[in-house]
């Protein structure tokens, strides 16, 4: 909300500069988002002038050469000013910018030659001063324009008078963030009350205290409210003899500074009263209200209405319309109708000030796409008392600025004032919540400044909540907040909680996740963070069949776009996207991983609607290390990614294995399931070339595992295992086997046959080629034998070795040369 500082100071004027005011408001909860300058940057050089003479310009039809008295201070007689405005005339009092003056847009005025005549300044129009929108003629300062409203200056000012003394040509404007719990601060006076509480400076009386109107029934107009639940209060006043015209300069200037465009005096008054009190108003031309009767009712579902902007809008029964005898005239709180709008010939005005249900307005505004200064105030939830604040302020101005006569009475429908709420504020509780005491006297003072009344009670205060705060302050803790924010939460000491029994530590699962991420980064992989969202087409690009379990995705009802409309069922999508992005920009070598959540729908009858698990995915393509001058780096393939998987799982002491298995998105001959016992941890494999190709990638390999399951099988504490003091005996064995026999089976077979002393078997070389024959390969096995009590000899292990050879023979193996 924009609040011109000069306007604010009219109600509360602390001896502080704009920076200090900003600081106090911000630190008490009314955050100043920005400070703008409205009007001229500096009032220097702007003075009142008196037009002594007007002559035609010798060389230009549309220009005049004026002799203008700028006051004795000039000391050099009257100034010559060239002026192009059609309305300039001898005898006028005008606003003049002298050479050196800086205009609102930043241009500095210079003495200038206009078609051969030197002009010593400029006679100004109101738009040039940003105090109005009129630019067709110069601003004439007569008694009427100056004599109205709070800034009365009485007579026409003398030439040479600083212009700022008679017109609001410059003000700082505070842009405030008003939190949703404070609709009472959506008007200048509400902010003034905050400033009063925050600084202790005097607060002027409420501007609605002196109401020139009267209560009682009104002749000649009628209002019926059919839905009091959506319209807690509806007030209206009638004004006769209204003359529509421009508003006085001070009023236009205020609206301009507050960000509102002046229209005509009646509309400007409704805007001014709203900006001051926070309560929106609406003016009807009473002669255009058919039947002089308004009916407030729920709209019918599907009811069509043409609004002021020419659009046909469809309403529903949660929205409120205002009818006259000819049908709907406006949508309550949102938009008036053209039929009963105030026009230049209007003479009788009905001024509506109503309270609408806040959430209802919010919903209707959102549904219909209609937002305005009024709707944004209504939707926060205004209090019925505010209606008469706005009526009182507007009535005063209707009399002063439109020459109107208020008809007797005020229509006031459907409102019973509620008894004010009284809350106990315990002194001990204030201290308990804040951590420091606040003196009772100070508490009372703060609450009074905020319009609360406090009476002493045995353990604190009995506090009466003012009507405008009744929705926000309903409990003791809400009062504590009021005391705290004005006393200054910035002044609280910095203490630490007692932390009884609290010891910070990570869980096993959290440590496993960190260790897994660290293991991958330590092996040269970069971590990426992808989107949780994915596009439905991802499932097709991963070649998933229509009934594949991974197609059971969580879908968003209101995605930002179709490309972000499902929750990812796998980390592969974001890994592939990141790989594609980087291959295009940074070359073909990709080694990345992601540690993040994946999502699957579990169906309606499950207790949880979605299964979320934390996954770790790795994707490699191209070289796995930088090029080196001594050796060519390994290239990404099945075994390269399996080596990374091995490093990860061995680091975490997991007992694991793989078995061939296929996934639609993996190379059918180069993919496997990762197992820990019977538990499936995930997959490892080369990507299907069609999938890799869909992301513009060459040979690419990946694995993904479920980190939750990994944590479950990773031991928390590693027990010590004694190792013998004697060294083990190592032997190598090369065996030629049919290549259909998996290495894991060879090792398992050797292990089974080796007996107790065989500690370990591993494959350290693989050879296939002419020497071993078609369909066969040679595996070189490293055997490690160990005895707990003595050093073994070749003779000792000979029987075991024979058994192993025999067992391998059963697999079709024969010892190699």
């Amino acid at each position, binding site marked *: 909300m924009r609040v011109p500082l000069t306007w604010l100071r009219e109600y509360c004027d602390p001896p502080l500069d704009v920076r200090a005011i900003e600081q106090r408001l911000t630190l008490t909860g009314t*955050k100043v988002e920005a400070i703008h300058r409205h009007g001229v940057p500096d009032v220097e050089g702007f003075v009142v002038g008196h037009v002594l003479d007007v002559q035609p310009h010798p060389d230009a039809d549309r220009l005049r050469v004026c002799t203008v008295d700028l006051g004795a201070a000039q000391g050099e007689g009257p100034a010559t000013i060239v002026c192009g405005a059609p309305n300039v005339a001898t005898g006028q009092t005008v606003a003049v910018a002298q050479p050196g003056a800086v205009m609102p847009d930043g241009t500095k005025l210079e003495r200038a030659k206009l078609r051969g005549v030197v002009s010593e300044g400029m006679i100004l129009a109101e738009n040039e001063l940003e105090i109005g929108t009129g630019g067709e003629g110069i601003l004439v300062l007569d008694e009427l324009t100056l004599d109205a409203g709070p800034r009365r200056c009485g007579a026409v000012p003398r030439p040479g008078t600083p212009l700022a003394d008679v017109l609001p040509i410059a003000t700082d404007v505070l842009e405030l963030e008003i939190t949703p719990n404070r609709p009472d601060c959506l008007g200048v006076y509400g902010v003034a009350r905050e400033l009063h509480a925050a600084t202790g400076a005097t607060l002027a009386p409420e501007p609605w205290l002196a109401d020139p109107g009267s209560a009682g029934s009104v002749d000649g107009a009628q209002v019926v409210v059919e839905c009091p639940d959506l319209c807690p209060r509806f007030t209206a006043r009638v004004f006769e003899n209204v003359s529509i015209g421009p508003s006085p300069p001070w009023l236009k200037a205020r609206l301009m500074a507050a960000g509102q465009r002046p229209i005509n005096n009646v509309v400007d008054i409704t805007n001014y009263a709203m900006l001051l009190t926070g309560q929106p108003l609406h003016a009807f031309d009473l002669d255009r209200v058919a039947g002089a009767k308004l009916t407030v009712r729920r709209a019918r579902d599907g009811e069509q209405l043409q609004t002021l902007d020419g659009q046909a809008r469809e309403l529903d029964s949660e929205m409120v319309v205002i009818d006259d005898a000819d049908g709907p005239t406006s949508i309550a709180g949102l938009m008036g109708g053209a039929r009963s709008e105030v026009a230049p010939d209007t003479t009788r005005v009905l001024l509506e000030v109503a309270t609408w249900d806040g959430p209802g307005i*919010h919903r209707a505004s*959102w549904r219909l796409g209609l937002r305005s200064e009024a709707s944004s105030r209504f939707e926060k939830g205004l209090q019925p008392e505010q209606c008469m604040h706005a009526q009182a302020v507007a009535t005063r101005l209707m009399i002063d600025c439109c020459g109107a006569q208020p008809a007797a009475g005020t229509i006031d429908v459907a409102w019973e004032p509620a008894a004010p709420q009284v809350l106990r504020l315990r002194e001990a509780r204030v201290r*308990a919540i804040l*951590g420091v005491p606040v003196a009772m006297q100070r508490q009372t003072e703060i609450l009074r400044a905020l319009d609360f009344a406090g009476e002493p009670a045995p353990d604190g205060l009995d506090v009466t909540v003012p009507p405008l705060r009744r929705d926000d302050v309903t409990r003791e803790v809400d009062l504590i907040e009021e005391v705290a924010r004005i006393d200054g939460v910035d002044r609280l000491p910095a203490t630490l909680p007692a932390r009884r029994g*609290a010891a910070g530590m990570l869980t096993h699962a959290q440590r496993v996740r960190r260790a897994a991420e660290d293991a991958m980064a330590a092996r*040269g992989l970069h971590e990426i963070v992808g989107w949780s969202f994915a596009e439905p087409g991802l499932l097709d690009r991963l070649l998933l069949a229509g009934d594949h379990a991974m197609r059971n995705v969580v879908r*968003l009802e209101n995605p930002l776009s179709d490309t972000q409309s499902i929750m990812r069922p796998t980390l592969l999508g974001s890994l592939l996207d990141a790989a594609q*992005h980087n291959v295009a920009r940074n070359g073909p070598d990709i080694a990345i991983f992601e540690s993040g959540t994946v999502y699957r729908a579990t169906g309606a009858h499950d207790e949880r609607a979605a299964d979320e698990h934390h996954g770790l995915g790795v994707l490699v393509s191209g070289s796995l290390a930088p090029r080196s001058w001594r050796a060519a780096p390994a290239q990404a393939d099945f075994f390269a990614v399996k080596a990374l998987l091995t490093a990860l799982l061995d680091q975490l002491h997991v007992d694991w294995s793989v078995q061939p298995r296929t996934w639609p998105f993996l190379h059918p001959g180069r993919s496997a399931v990762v197992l820990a016992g019977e538990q499936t941890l995930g997959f490892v494999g080369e990507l299907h070339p069609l999938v890799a190709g869909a992301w513009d990638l060459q040979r690419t390999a990946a694995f993904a595992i479920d980190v939750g399951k990994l944590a479950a099988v990773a031991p928390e504490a590693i027990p010590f295992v004694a190792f013998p003091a004697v060294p083990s005996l190592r032997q190598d064995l090369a065996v030629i086997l049919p290549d259909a026999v998996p290495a894991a089976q060879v090792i398992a077979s050797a292990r089974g046959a080796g007996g107790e002393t065989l500690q370990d078997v591993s494959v350290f070389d693989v050879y296939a080629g002419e020497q071993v024959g078609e369909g066969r390969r040679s595996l070189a096995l490293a055997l490690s034998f160990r005895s707990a009590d003595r050093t073994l000899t070749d003779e000792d292990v000979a029987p075991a070795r024979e058994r192993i050879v025999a067992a391998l023979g059963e697999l079709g193996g024969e010892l190699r040369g």
Partner: protein
Amino acid sequence: MIERIAELRGQAEAEIAAAGSAEALQELRVRYLGRKAELPQMLRGVARLAPELRGAVGKAANQARQALDALIEQRSSQLGGEELHERLRADRVDVTLPGAPAQPVGRLHLLTTMRRELEDIFLGLGFTVMEGPEIESVHYNFDALNHSPTHPARARTDTFYIARPDLLAPSEPRPGQPPSPLAAEELVLRTHTSPMQVRAMEAHPPPLYVVIPGRVYRPDSDATHTPQFHQIEGLAVDEDITLADLKGTLLMFARAVFGDRRDVRLRPHFFPFTEPSVEVDVSCFHCAGSGFLRDGARCPLCKGEGWLEVLGAGEVDPNVYSHVPTSEANAPGYDPEKVQGFAWGMGVERIAMLKHGVPDLRLYYENDLRFLEQF
């Protein structure tokens, strides 16, 4: 005779010191200590000397022989060392060539590093780390956090809803009517980590000190908003946890992340689930909180304010405790007259952005290696 010994010794010492090779040394050894050399002959001739001379001459000759012997040994190993040294010097590599084979260097994502840094700070302050679901019920995301049934944050424009054809979910609660019972079954992508406040209190009795890192979602997308981002929620509930304790805890955080000389400032604000509510500013580390740089220019980081807004916080609203049912798991439960505490929510992206000067939030999710390699 003794003079002769000294003369021989001096002469030999000088020649040994000057010997330039093993051969030269061997020649000197033969010359001075060989069978036919003068000194050994003197030693052998001691027996033939007058008894009063035998002691002194024998001793001097013996000492000279031993000294020369040792000197030759010393010089010999010295010469050997020099020779090895020369050989090794010749066996030289270009140490400025890169190490090989090159080891790839990988890094954690900045968001992970930042999240862990924050977790570790609060672990040190006695908080444990909890995580929770990202697909969350309306109950935990809004209702239990004291959002009114008509709170604007519930709107489709502000929250992602999960499409659930199995439920006849009403779109918007209607004004003046209680929310439909089905509304509580609606699922959303959590808009903050705060739903875990109630979940944590349901699972554990007080005192409770937890931080909850995690991914959250809001339908916004521009340079300062991404539809997904990360928060770290903090929650401390005990008998007597005050707003001053919140300030102290966040001061520790601010100094740990932004430097020892930082200060924090609480500003009153509004959140539905805290009361009193505050926004927390940290004094700007770029201009030491002055708002201006040394050259007088306005600080570009804090825009001359001297303070950087980093998070929202407050004392837990009593209404939130009333949404925590007492059970076996959390007995004796959370009675707002008996327990009190604070909560905060901070944005990981924003803190990393401030600390590392990342100009655009979207860089975090683009995953360009030129970004990833930097941190």
